[in-house]
Structures are given as C-alpha cells and as structure tokens.
C-alpha cells in the first residue's frame, strides 16, 4: 500500500465497490455509501499537504466525457484524478465527433479502444451511463445523466452534512426547489433515505415528480413547513432554461413563495447548514444574504467534491493489481 494516508480505510484491501461502475446511488448499499464517505475523509487530508498528489492511480487512464456543459463537476473530477496521478483527458461534446453525427455508442467504443480504465460521463439523456456501462469494459462514473442521478454530488453532500452534524440518521433535511428536473434531488433522496435521514422536499406542485412520496420522503408545498426545525436546508437550482414550460407564473412570484430568505432560515435549527449544488440563481431560489451568510456551506461542498471524487475513483480503479505492481 503506497498511498500514504495514516489510519485511513485505504489500508483495507477488501474495501472496494461491488461493481465496475458508479451509475447511481440506487445501486449502492448503505455500507458502500459509508465506505465512500470514510475513504473521502482520508482523501481530504491530501489536499492539506504541500504536495497534493499520491500515486494511487498512476498508470491508470481516465477520460472525462462531457456531453453537457459543466464547470464545477468536470473541474472537480479533473483535480481529483490529477491528485491521484491518473492520466486524464477531457472530451466535451462540442469538440468531439458527436457534432459530426457520431452516435454515443460509437464515440464510447472508439474511446474504449484506447483502453481507458474509467470514463466519467455527463450526458443530457437519463440512462446514458447505464447504456454505456453495458457496452464498455471501462468503468463508468455517472457525472450526471439527464434528470436521473448525479451520485457524486449526493455523496459530497452527505460528506459535508456528516462533517457538520457527525451523523446522517435522524436529521431533518429539507430539499427545496425544482424537484422535477433535478438529478441532484433524486440522488440525494435515495442516499439520505438509505441512511435514515428525515427528508422533506418542497417546491411548487408543478415541479414535484409524481409518486415521489413513495420514496419515503415528506412532500410539502410549504417551504416554511419544510424548513421548520431543519438541520440541513438544501436548495435546488431553478433551471431557467427549462422554465419555458410555464411551471410557475414568474421568477418574482417564485422567490416570494419558495425563495430562501434569512427570515425563513430562522425557522430552522440555530445550527442549520445551508447547501446548494450550484450554479446558484441569486434572488431566485436563494437570497444572497443566505448564500453568503454564516450558515452557508456552499463552498465547502465544492472543496469536499474533490475528496469524494478521489474516493470514488480510487475505489473503482485503485488497489487490486495496482497494489501488487507498486
């Protein structure tokens, strides 16, 4: 074991995820989720070192294949990969042969022919990563597929919550905003309910996915009820580009009814933390004074994203034969 992290779970050779892919939180057991979070604890220490690099993925190739614009997630993965010494390359749809009419399958198989170990994929179509996992030998990490899942976001959110609250079970967690189109919502609901948090979701009735209550969450159209006594408030972005569908009358009315203001934050527990997966629309779903206020952990989420993604990359591609070779 040459990854020099003291007392971390990385010392446990058996600590791996079951599959070759991370397609969603749906496929993870609670133990696997905790394994990622514990591994991320160890990874976070690396960011505090003067030399922020370990050789855990030396000789491994990771392709970041992004079919949808992304700054935060793509950068976060790239930093994580580099800190683990993987060889990385970034492909975004605008520069690839997709614009020439190549299919997703052909794009993936051509990249696959160059023997990557992992592909980190973001795509506008729900299920695109499942599709790729069936045709690729390389492991697929879902970096967001359509309206389906964004598992590393939920993992970094859970990591951030656990850091502040020391637990996840029993916490009242309110998730507010555009629930219908949000992959962050789906991954978070799956993860937090698997770890027994008390999850409340709130948004306008037009943006609540049908049947969501059957996932074990409380649904309310009153943000005040959702936020009341909450340990965590997680705001979701109003996807302005999707608002042509007339889901609500105006941004102004949305902010009045669902915007997180400091007045509303006062209904929550005094030690509440405010989260947002970004990018934020200030003055639409969240007031600037809240986003930048003392309770906000939004930038911590970004920092933790790197550690969590390092953990996922390591658990999927590190260890094993790599250790033997090292």
């Amino acid at each position, binding site marked *: 074991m040459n990854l020099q992290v003291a007392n971390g779970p990385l010392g446990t050779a058996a600590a791996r995820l079951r599959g070759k892919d991370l397609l969603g939180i749906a496929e993870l057991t609670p133990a696997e989720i905790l394994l990622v979070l514990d591994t991320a604890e160890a990874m976070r220490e690396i960011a505090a070192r003067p030399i922020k690099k370990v050789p855990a993925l030396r000789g491994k190739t990771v392709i970041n294949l992004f079919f949808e614009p992304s700054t935060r997630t793509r950068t976060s993965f790239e930093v994580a990969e580099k800190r683990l010494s993987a060889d990385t390359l970034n492909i975004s749809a605008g520069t690839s042969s997709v614009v020439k009419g190549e*299919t997703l399958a052909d794009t993936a198989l051509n990249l696959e022919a160059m023997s990557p170990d992992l592909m980190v994929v973001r795509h506008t179509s729900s299920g*695109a990563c499942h599709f790729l996992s069936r045709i690729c030998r390389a492991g697929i990490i879902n970096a967001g597929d359509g309206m389906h899942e964004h598992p590393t976001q939920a993992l970094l959110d859970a990591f951030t919550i656990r850091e502040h609250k020391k637990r996840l079970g029993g916490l009242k967690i309110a998730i507010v905003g555009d629930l219908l189109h949000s992959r962050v919502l789906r991954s978070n609901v799956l993860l937090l309910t698997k770890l027994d948090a008390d999850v409340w979701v709130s948004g306008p009735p037009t943006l609540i996915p049908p049947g969501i209550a059957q996932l074990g969450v409380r649904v309310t159209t009153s943000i005040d009820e959702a936020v009341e006594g909450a340990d965590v408030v997680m705001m979701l972005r109003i996807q302005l580009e999707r608002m042509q569908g007339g889901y609500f009358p105006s941004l102004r009315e949305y902010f009045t009814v669902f915007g997180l203001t400091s007045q509303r934050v006062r209904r929550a527990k005094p030690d509440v933390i405010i989260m947002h997966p970004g990018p934020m629309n200030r003055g639409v779903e969240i007031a600037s004074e809240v986003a930048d206020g003392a309770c906000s952990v939004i930038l911590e989420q970004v920092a933790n994203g790197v550690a969590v993604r390092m953990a996922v990359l390591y658990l999927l591609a590190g260890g094993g034969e790599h250790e033997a070779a090292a």
Partner: protein
Amino acid sequence: MKRLLEGARVVDPVRGVDGRFDVLIDGDRIARVAVEIPAAERAGAEVLALQPGWIVCPGFIDMHVHLREPGQEHKETIATGTAAAVAGGFTGVACMPNTDPVNDNSSVTKFIVERAAGAPARVYPIGAVTKGSAGEQLAEIADLRAAGCVALSDDGRPVANALILRRGLEYARMFDMAIIDHCEDPALKGEGVAHEGLVAAVLGLRGIPAAAEEVMVYRDIALAELTGGRVHIAHLSTRGSLRAVRDGRARGVRVTCEVTPHHFTLTDEQLKAPLSYDTNLKMNPPLREAADRDALVAGLADGTVDAIASDHAPHHYDEKHVEFDRAPFGIVGLETAVPLALDRLVHAGVISIGRLVELMSVNPARLLGVPGGTLEPGSPADVTVLAPEVTTTIDPARFRSLSRNTPFGGWTLKGTVAATIVGGRVAYANPDLASLAAR
C-alpha cells in the same frame, strides 16, 4: 386442389363450433367442416397431418401493423412484414398509413396493394384520415376506399383538431369505415418518453400521463356519439380509457378498441430491471403501471376490448441502439403476439381459446369489414393452426421481420403457431414442429 385438415379441434366461435372436425378446403375457399367428410367429397384431397393438441381456427388478422413500405424499407418491407405475419400466425394484416409518402391518396394505396399481390399474407391498407396525416384537411376518402383501404387513421399522430375528426367521422359514415385513432393529447404528452408515475420519476424520464390518452378517448367517444360514426381506439393502454369505452358502449356509442400484447404483459417496472433503460421497452403509448395492465387483462376477458393488435413497429438496430430519449417509439410484435396471448391469457386462465379467436380473428375481420373470421363454407380458406401446448423460447435472430426490436427475446412461452394457411395454401409451417407435409 383440395386439402383436408383432418380430425383436429376446430374453434369457430361465429358458428358456435368447438370440437373435433375435419375441414375440407377447395381451392382458396373453405368447402366443408364436418365430423366426417363424405368419401366422395374428400376424394383426391391432400391430407395435411395435424398433431394431437393442435387447434384449427379461422385466420388471425392483426389490425395494427406498420409495414414501412414505401419509404422506410430499411426497417421492414411488405415482403418481410407479411413473412413475419404468417410466421406469427396471421393470415392478414392491416397496415398503417404512416409510410413515406403517407398513404393519403389512391396511388399510394394502389402501390401497396400491388406490392402485396404475391405476399404470403393478405394486406389491408389503412388510409390516412387527413392529407399527409397533418390533421388539417380530409384525405380523399372515397378514392382511398375504392383503391382498397379498409379503415382510416392518422396513426402515430392523433387527429388533434376535434372539428376535423368530427368531419372525418361524418364523412366516413357513408362507407361505414372506422376511424382508428391514436389517442394522445400532444401538449400533455409533451416530450414524454415513459408512463408518468413513480418509475419515470425515479429514472428521470419525462412522463406521459395516462390522462394524455384519456382526454382524447373521451373526446373521441363524444364525437362518435355526436356523429354516429365509428371510432376505434388504437392500442388502448390505461384503465381510465377502458372505463370510457365501457361507458360509451353502454349508451350505444359506436366505439371499439384494441390492446397490444406488450400492454397486457408488461408494466413500466420493466424499465428498471433487468435491463434498465432498454430502448426496446420504449413505445407509445408507454408501458403503464400494474393497475392498468391488470385492467386491460380484465377488459380482454369481459368483452370490453374488441381486438388484440400488435402495433408491429419495426425499427432498425442502429435507431434503437442509442440513448433512451433519442430512440424511436415502438417494438415488433407480429412474431410474438400469439405466443404471448396463449401464455399470458389462455394458459393463465384469463380467456378461452374461443375468446382468443374472437379477439384475433372474428372481431378484427368485422371491424375492418374484410372477409374471414370464420370457417363457414364459402369463406376464404384462411386458417391459423395453433400448437397451444408447445413451449418455445423467443429468438429474435430467427424473426422473418427485418427488425429485431423486441423486449421478449429469451422469453419462454407456452403455446405457439403450428401453421398458417392463406387462401388454401400453406403459407407457414413451423419448422420446429413435426411437419405439416402432405401424408
């Protein structure tokens, strides 16, 4: 040329026949069905050997098929589609007009009729209700009728404008032609790709609510009531639609409906596992939830549903081998419909063989106004021979269809097709079963 089907169980509900009979075919017609055909009459007939347990039925007709010709011959042709039809036990198919060009005028109809002349199965073209199926102006319905169209539909699209549908129903009345409507409110369907419900919510797929179908079913029934015209609801998929049909019919409205094998077999749960986001589970209307599927099964049993139709929608592998929301809607069905109906309905104890024959032969013939649906002497010698006790595994590689887009590959089902006789000739003999060759 005479042929004799000897000593098999014959099921012909129109004539109240269910028992052991000989069926004598003379040329392309049924000559006689009797416990014993007099020696003088059967003299010189070729005897077709039937195995014990096989059942002789009037030829099955699939009233909702996409043959793709003209225009999309990479998916299917009239030749391959009719080969698939007879292999699936169908002696006739009604083909939808959403070809390229649309079958909205007699020259396209004549082309189809001409191409189908030597085909193994009978082909009954369905003409478009409106020009280009654009929903704006009625097609030349009398001309379509004269060229051979048996019904009207803008399938794939609903007739969205209620006034146009009203005019179509009124106008088609003079030919007693049904308008087959693909009921779906375009705005409510939106960009949906799966049934709106928990499964779509979890999978992040845009939903198509049951109401998208139901609001148009209710509208169509109201317009059929207003006009006295005949409306037939294509691939009905929700319990609410079924209720609407039942209510409409109870007050005398001329409304009928069909259900597909995939809708009476599968639910949207299938989208999650074992093969998540399988594009061969993407069809329109989408697979609904269990309560809908169960209601459809009940409707097949209680008579509310008139016909089983496959909505055979061939698509090329390349078109389906893409992201779920980019794949076209539809699956092939001609070569799986009968095994699914036998396994899931007859062997499951939901319906009798007699009811199956009503759903797949008698009623489609009546609804389209075409010959068949019975083995009455003088009828066309179109016969479907079932081997209901034979278990087979669906192997898409052996399909006669040009396309293989089915979710049923690898399914083991009890009951299959032994042979298909069209116009007195054996158009298909199941190669896996003891030969039907003349004895």
